[in-house]
């Protein structure tokens, strides 16, 4: 069964049984391989799912925005590199921000970027949650995400890197997003998130602590690089072993932090 619904209707409905279809890049795989396990597909067609608007100092991005539309939107310049890291052009035309929040390991690289940007997740019933809390209970969550919001930032403060085995595109060995404010080369604010380094994208809090007050040079970031392994809980998968991921994580973080801006 497929249903077309509005957000308003879902807010009223006491119980929604079914799976929300975003771009289909994850859910349609399950439909193709095991349709009998998904009784109902629910499509939300409200235009507000694809809106980008400013509220105070926060930028609201509709959960139905595709990666391609993020790339094309002039207010979302900071997120462009993360959106471009998702799949080829066809996947980017389909995959949505909302779907990416639910993407299981090793997918979900865009969510890594949102995590570093301290995003909030907004639900159809008006409830909101910070992204980190949301990710902890994600797999049990049955609510419809209508939007995410992030602090308006300058693109200069945001760095993103996705590491893959195949070029130009592949699935993540790992991804790293860093929101750094470092006026005069000394870090005042640091939020670091990793993808493919645990069951969900995760914050590297020990690394962040070690970075605060540090200078952005080889010597300055060494304590942060040493701290990073305590933050990560990678698993073996066909793309890379946990050992490999741990071994290369500090190296890629170093390259990202020392990237010439």
């Amino acid at each position, binding site marked *: 069964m497929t249903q077309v619904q509005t957000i308003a209707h879902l807010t009223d409905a006491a119980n929604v049984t079914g799976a929300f279809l975003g771009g289909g890049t994850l859910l349609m795989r399950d439909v*193709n391989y*095991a349709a009998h396990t998904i009784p109902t597909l629910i499509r939300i067609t409200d235009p507000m799912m694809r809106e980008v608007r400013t509220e105070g100092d926060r930028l609201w991005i509709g959960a139905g925005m595709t990666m391609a539309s993020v790339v094309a939107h002039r207010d979302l310049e900071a997120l462009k590199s993360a959106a471009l890291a998702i799949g080829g052009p066809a996947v980017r035309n389909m995959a949505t921000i909302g779907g990416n929040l639910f993407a299981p390991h090793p997918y979900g690289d865009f969510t890594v970027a949102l995590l570093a940007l301290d995003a909030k997740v907004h639900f159809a019933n008006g409830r909101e949650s910070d992204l980190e809390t949301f990710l902890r209970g994600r797999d049990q969550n049955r609510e419809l995400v209508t939007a995410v919001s992030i602090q308006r930032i300058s693109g200069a403060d945001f760095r993103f890197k996705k590491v893959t085995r195949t070029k130009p595109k592949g699935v993540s060995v790992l991804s790293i997003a860093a929101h750094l404010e470092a006026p005069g080369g000394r870090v005042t604010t640091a939020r670091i998130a990793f993808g493919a380094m645990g069951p969900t994208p995760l914050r590297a809090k020990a690394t962040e602590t070690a970075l605060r007050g540090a200078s952005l040079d080889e010597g300055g970031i060494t304590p942060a690089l040493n701290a990073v392994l305590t933050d990560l809980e990678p698993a073996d998968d066909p793309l890379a072993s946990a050992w490999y991921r741990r071994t290369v994580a500090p190296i890629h973080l170093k390259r990202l932090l020392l990237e010439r801006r």
Partner: protein
Amino acid sequence: MTTVEFRKDLFANERQDDLNEIGKPKIRQDIEGHVTGRTAYFDDHLFEGLLHMRCVRSPHHHARIRSLNAAEAERMPGVVRVIYPRDVPNNLNTLLSLINFGRDDEPLLSHQKVAYRGEAVLAIIAETEAQARAAVDAVRVEWDELPHVLDVEDALKPGAPVVNEEYPNNCFDYEPYDHVKLRFGDVHAAFQQADHVVEATYEMSPIEHAPVETCGAIAAPETNGRYVCHTATQALFFSLGTTAKFLDMPSSRLHFIGGTVGGGFGGKVDSLTEPLAVLGAMLSGKPVKFMWDREEEMQVGAPRGAERWVIKDGVMADGRIIARSLTGYFDAGAYTRLSSYAGTKCTGHLPGPYTIPNVASNVFCVYTNRTPATAMRGFGITGVDFAIECHMDRVAEKVGMDPISLRILNSYRDGDMKAHRRSAKNCALVECCQVAAGKANWTLSAEDQAATSLTGTNANRQEIPETALDEDGRVGERKAGRVATTEPSLGTRRLPAGTHGRSHAAVAPQRPDMQILAERVGHRMDSEPQPMPEQSAAQVSAPRPPAPPRAAPPSPPPAAPPLQTQNTQPAPMAPVQSTPVPTYPPAAPPTSETEPAPKPFQKGVRRPGVSRFLSGSRRR
């Protein structure tokens, strides 16, 4: 654009340079269909009321089926037919039975136990693919998990779980041994004389072909009891014969259509989808499609098998390799398929393209609880070449030599004796090394630059040495714990120097029209001997010193001058009749120890369990 460079300066006088097509751009005859989307692959044939087939597959590496209940699945919406193992008329096969090699060891649908993850135990036909998938999920199977073995060397240990009941020793029977033997000279004696002995182990993982089009077939009833089958197979008549055998029906009732394959690379010869699709069409009376999804292609689709190689070289300080011992393990997975052939083929390739006076190899085809392996681009050769070339670098490092120089020094030269007791001819490794070095801006010594494959052989390099033979590893001994090692061991008897191999005689064609006439296939046979290498050697080497480049004798006797007449004569193979009588029991001639006597090919199929209806095979 990608270009091909032709080095016509090399061996220029060995061929007539009158090629009209090679080296010139050509538009593929099928490409217009490809770019317009009109090329018809097997799945591009529309049938009214097409049914879809899916399989119930093992989630375990190794398990016995305690019970299987498909009652609920049979009642599910859209389900047309459940196919049980008992529905397969002749549920045991081995692919190479079509050329009478090996014993039947693999069911189409397994009914007692499964020996690899993904092995099929049941097939379900439904009106839609989604219904077939739902029904597959509704089948209840109780599995008794068995201990499994995933490593080739573990599988050869006496206490290892038996993977394949037909081969209880966990390796293919290359009668009378459980491996293929190659013996030339005495490696153990040579290791004693060597300045260095370099040993290392190399491993290659299985490689999935991952064609973009997955394996599949559509079968439909035609008239007069015939069935049409559109298939993605790379080997149409192989798949046809295999289907005829599984279904115990005359091949004349099967109308197989193939030809356009969406990528194969060797992975579409195993013929697993065609028999089930045709059986489905027979049992349902309707068109049935059986196409693997991507997960099946990756899990069930046979890969290039894993290999492990232990190579031990005896090398002199100047870089001459005087002994090479190789122990190879081909991981066949749970069933034989084509891996038995890989072991034989690979032995024919050892010790690589190098003249080494003492060579011994043991090559095993081992069963493990992994996905059965199959053909892939040069299988049997590619893996061991990787190992050998890695090892050459290691040897070069050990003796402190340039790795390309080491290769040029040890390369086959025209006229050298190979470990298979045949003369090397048309050798070109020296020239390949020189060109590759040039392309890589790698500096070679003047001596290496001057080397050529045409010269450099000598009496020592043409010699067949006295050879140490052993009887280790007769079938069954290993499992009984009576064989200590898998590596070539010390010999127990000697084969005199100079003993040539014997040619296998091919039987006469069944009918006169099966005789391949060279003229008919456009091959020109020259009656006049070709006067080439002598002159070319003289021309090419004119400005250089006349002595063979560094072709120092590998063993004690002094170097003989190059035999100038060697290249104009046929390879120094003694005819069968004049072979010197060896002084060892008559059972095992040296180069074909796995075959007691040079039996001619057997034509047709006359064995129990083999379809009576298969036609004879031509001598190829």
